[in-house]
């Protein structure tokens, strides 16, 4: 089932159902409130995409948000996970001095639910389409918690390789140092990635990481404003959480990339 990211309306006592990968989402407008039920079970007992309240199984567990009587608009938007991600390829790859390698990494999206409350859309909740395990970035005294993602780090794009609930991030690594560079894992701070939709797939704007000899000089991550070809004409459906930037201004985040990779 593919999710529609367009805004829609929902009358009182009506529901609609959508899903992203293993995640199933049911939204209900009932009395003066929005109700959301999520499940990762394969058989959630809901038939059809929308209907009346009496068609829903009574076993659903709901979260509820207050709204006004006349509020009816609702919208789902994709989002990247709230924590940074450490992506580990199944097998490492050595990049020769002066060489570069383009990788595609699929990050399971979160689904944000926005409901109309008092005339304007308000974020109600955010639900991961797939729960990732956690990992630690740093030493045992200081660092930050991240999501861990095992990836095949594919070198070529083939639409059939990707799951519908993945946001495809292209990472172009340039080894500008004099030493071969072993790509074993990659720290990705997701705050500067926007999400675009293109041919029923979700894409993030492309990024390029330059590896140099010294961490203090020039190592950086550069963000494009659009996804890589073939999705460069994709339509933006979610803007970057920490705002758009062409170059990471955070030395910490950027240095982390290098620290972790090395």
């Amino acid at each position, binding site marked *: 089932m593919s999710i529609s990211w367009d805004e829609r309306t929902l009358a009182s006592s009506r529901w609609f159902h959508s899903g992203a990968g293993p995640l199933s989402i049911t939204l209900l407008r009932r009395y003066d409130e929005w109700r959301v039920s999520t499940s990762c079970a394969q058989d959630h007992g809901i038939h059809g995409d929308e209907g009346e309240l009496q068609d829903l199984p009574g076993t659903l567990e709901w979260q509820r948000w207050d709204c006004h009587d006349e509020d009816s608009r609702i919208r789902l938007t994709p989002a990247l996970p709230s924590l940074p991600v450490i992506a580990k390829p199944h097998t490492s790859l050595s990049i020769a001095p002066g060489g570069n390698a383009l990788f595609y990494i699929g990050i399971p999206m979160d689904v944000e639910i926005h409901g109309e409350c008092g005339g304007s859309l308000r974020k109600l909740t955010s639900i991961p389409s797939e729960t990732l395990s956690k990992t*630690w970035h740093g030493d045992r*005294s200081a660092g930050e*918690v991240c999501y861990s993602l095992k990836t095949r780090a594919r070198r070529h794009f083939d639409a059939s390789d990707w799951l519908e609930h993945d946001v495809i991030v292209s990472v172009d690594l340039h080894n500008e140092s004099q030493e071969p560079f072993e790509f074993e894992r990659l720290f990705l701070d997701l705050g500067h990635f926007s999400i675009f939709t293109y041919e029923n797939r979700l894409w993030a704007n492309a990024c390029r990481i330059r590896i140099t000899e010294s961490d203090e000089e020039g190592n950086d991550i550069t963000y494009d404003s659009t996804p890589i070809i073939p999705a460069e004409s994709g339509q933006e459906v979610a803007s970057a959480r920490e705002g758009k930037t062409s170059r990471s201004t955070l030395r910490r985040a950027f240095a982390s990339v290098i620290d972790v990779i090395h």
Partner: protein
Amino acid sequence: MPQWLQDFLATDLPWKILGAAVILIGGVLAVAILSRTALAIFGERLGPQGTMVVKKLIRYIGYAFAFILALNQMGLNLGAILGAAGVAGIAVGFAAQTSLSNIISGFFMIGERPFELGDIIEVDGIAGTVDTIGLLALTLRTFDNRSVRIPNETLVKTQLINVTRHPIRRFNLDIGVAYDENIGHVLKVMQEVAETNLQSLNEPDPLIIFTGFGDSSLNFLLGAWCVQEDYGTLRNTLPRELKERFDKENIEIPFPHMTLAAGKALSPIPVDLISDSESTD
């Protein structure tokens, strides 16, 4: 104006009282200003507990000093008072050895900063959250919401464990399986359980080791890392998931058992079978 008031005003006593009052009020203000200035300069370096102790120290010394000055203003013989205080001080010093020791220990704790307000620590087998830090003692709030006062001297003398100093922590789970099980397979299953647990961190790598041959079981240790906030959840989820997975893989967790022999080490215990008809007779 009554005569007694006229007589009173004719002496210098009113001016002395007024002077003493001004000194006391000025002293209180000066202590407040001094306290704030000192904390503004050193507060960050001292930390919350140091701040609290220094604030109290400045206040007590400042008030005592203002009080002595006020007495001096009143015309009392300060030398005699201080002399008496000195003699009394020796006597009090002997009596208050423990309190002084606690105060000095408190300074050591401030310098060392082994914990902060809100940290979870364990002292002498008592674990809890650091609630207040005083000149003489700190107060711990235990997990069942009791308040425990621990003298600073005890903190210096005994082993103190700060549970929440570092952001991540390891949960160790000892587990035994039957001697029939394949050690390699058990290690692999434990690794998979640790990897799929949502609270267990993939890095640092979980510690999974075969710890030895027990009386009734092959023993293993599973040490899974987690962030401090997830520790309680991990303690519940990891053993449950491991048990469920062992059940699925038909890996037996044995209970302690003992082999009995009838005198001769290798001879079995003789067993006589009795038929149903005989046994009911």
